[in-house]
């Protein structure tokens, strides 16, 4: 075993969603009851960031399992059943967390047009983040049981071994992979992945080319309306991408091209946050030039998104998928 591996990365990252989401949620409640607008904004930025970092956290968990239990053979002090339970809780926590992240982004997007967050969205985020936090706590507790044997209930000697638990995440993956005879899910997800890529890419292109000085007749407040379309494209691709990952995790977890792709997605998330939080771009009128900082961010955005496309394309060629 090498001195550093993805089990370490997972152990490092896995505290972020649990603790970070807890902090974000507390800030959210404090802002709600204190009616404090800047604090509200801080809390939704935090929820968005944690949702972003939950992506590598979830995926590194799968890699950690392969380090811990190669070929599904676990060492004696590790329970594969608690590992499956942890994976299931983590999947549901992840899905809710990403949904929360989407609505948090939507709230940020609306904040540029209205002084306060719409109350419906505020309540949606409240319910979603409460549920995500609960599931994340469950996932953390189950995850702790995998290795912290001191908190696991002692098994009486002589009791028969527990039957193997297949796991919900693995069962969903098997259906998507076509193992149960449903052959169209994977190809359909691929087609949607391309449609999502197209939507996302064109919004990135229109916004960033306008920042760089093309199509100056378009005003920024107008271009701003396009952003949810790009986010929709990203959501489609996150959902279909997760379908591939669940169906064939082995194709991805040890593939360096995939690691780079996920890293670039996280960096692109921070790039999005610049455009969401800094006003300088959006006050530029029709025919006017964007500030230099925005131009740098635009070049970085185009580089990152082409990179994400590149690494995805190269998964089977430079990497070791399929």
């Amino acid at each position, binding site marked *: 075993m090498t001195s550093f591996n993805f089990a370490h990365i997972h152990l490092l990252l896995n505290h972020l969603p649990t603790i970070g989401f807890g902090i974000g949620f507390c800030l959210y409640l404090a802002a709600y009851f204190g009616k404090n607008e800047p604090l509200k904004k801080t809390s939704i930025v935090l929820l968005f960031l944690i949702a972003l970092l939950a992506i590598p956290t979830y995926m590194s968990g799968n890699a950690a399992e392969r380090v811990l239990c190669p070929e599904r053979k676990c060492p004696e002090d590790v329970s594969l059943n608690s590992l499956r339970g942890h994976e299931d809780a983590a999947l549901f926590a992840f899905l809710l967390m990403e949904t929360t992240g989407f609505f948090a982004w939507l709230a940020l997007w609306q904040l540029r047009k209205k002084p306060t967050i719409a109350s419906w969205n505020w309540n949606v985020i409240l319910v979603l983040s409460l549920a995500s936090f609960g599931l994340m706590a469950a996932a953390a507790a189950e995850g702790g049981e995998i290795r912290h044997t001191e908190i696991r209930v002692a098994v009486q000697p002589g009791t028969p071994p527990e039957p193997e638990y297949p796991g919900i995440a693995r069962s969903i993956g098997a259906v998507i992979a076509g193992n149960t005879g449903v052959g169209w899910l994977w190809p359909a997800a691929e087609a949607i992945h391309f449609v999502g*890529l197209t939507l996302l890419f064109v919004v990135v292109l229109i916004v960033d080319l306008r920042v760089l000085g093309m199509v100056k007749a378009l005003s920024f*407040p*107008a271009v701003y309306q396009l952003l949810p379309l790009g986010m929709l494209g990203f959501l489609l691709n996150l959902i279909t991408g997760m379908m591939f990952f669940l169906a064939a995790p082995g194709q991805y977890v040890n593939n360096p091209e995939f690691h780079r792709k996920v890293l670039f997605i996280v960096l692109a998330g921070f790039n999005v946050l610049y455009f969401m939080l800094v006003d300088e771009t959006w006050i530029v009128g029709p025919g006017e030039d964007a500030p230099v900082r925005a131009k740098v961010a635009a070049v970085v955005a185009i580089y990152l998104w082409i990179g994400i*496309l590149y690494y995805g394309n190269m998964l089977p060629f430079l990497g070791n998928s399929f």
Partner: protein
Amino acid sequence: MEYLKWLEESGISTFVRESPSIFAFPTVLLLHTIGMALCVGVNAGIDLRILGFAPGIRVAPLEKLLPILWLGFTVNAITGTLLVMQDATTKLRNPDFYAKMVFIAAALIILKMTRTRVFRDPMLDKGSFSTNAKVLAALSLFFWMAAITAGRLLAYVGPVSGLG
């Protein structure tokens, strides 16, 4: 069928298919994806705008994005030809491939109609769009999505290389 075999065994086809270089098949495929994003993306953006999305954006300046669309289309015409040539005996016998070509042709005809009927309309950006314009936009979206789906399905339906 002789000429399909000839196409498939030509020098350039063999290079694209068999060269271990990253600049052969992987890069051709990558360019085909980027070209798709540019071409379909720009057209989908215009279609969605006509259908009422992002009403703050004026439509007339969007015509300046058309060179990007044509850049993407040209890249894809070239890379698509290479991708078909390197597997001609299979791809050109697959009805799904011809379905894809029909979808693309339909989408291009609709783009041409959109240019004459929407962009040349003196009332552009002065009121809401006519039902005709919206129908064109919806059809354009449909045909491009169908083309992408048919393209993806080339790896799954009809005769497919590399399977059994």
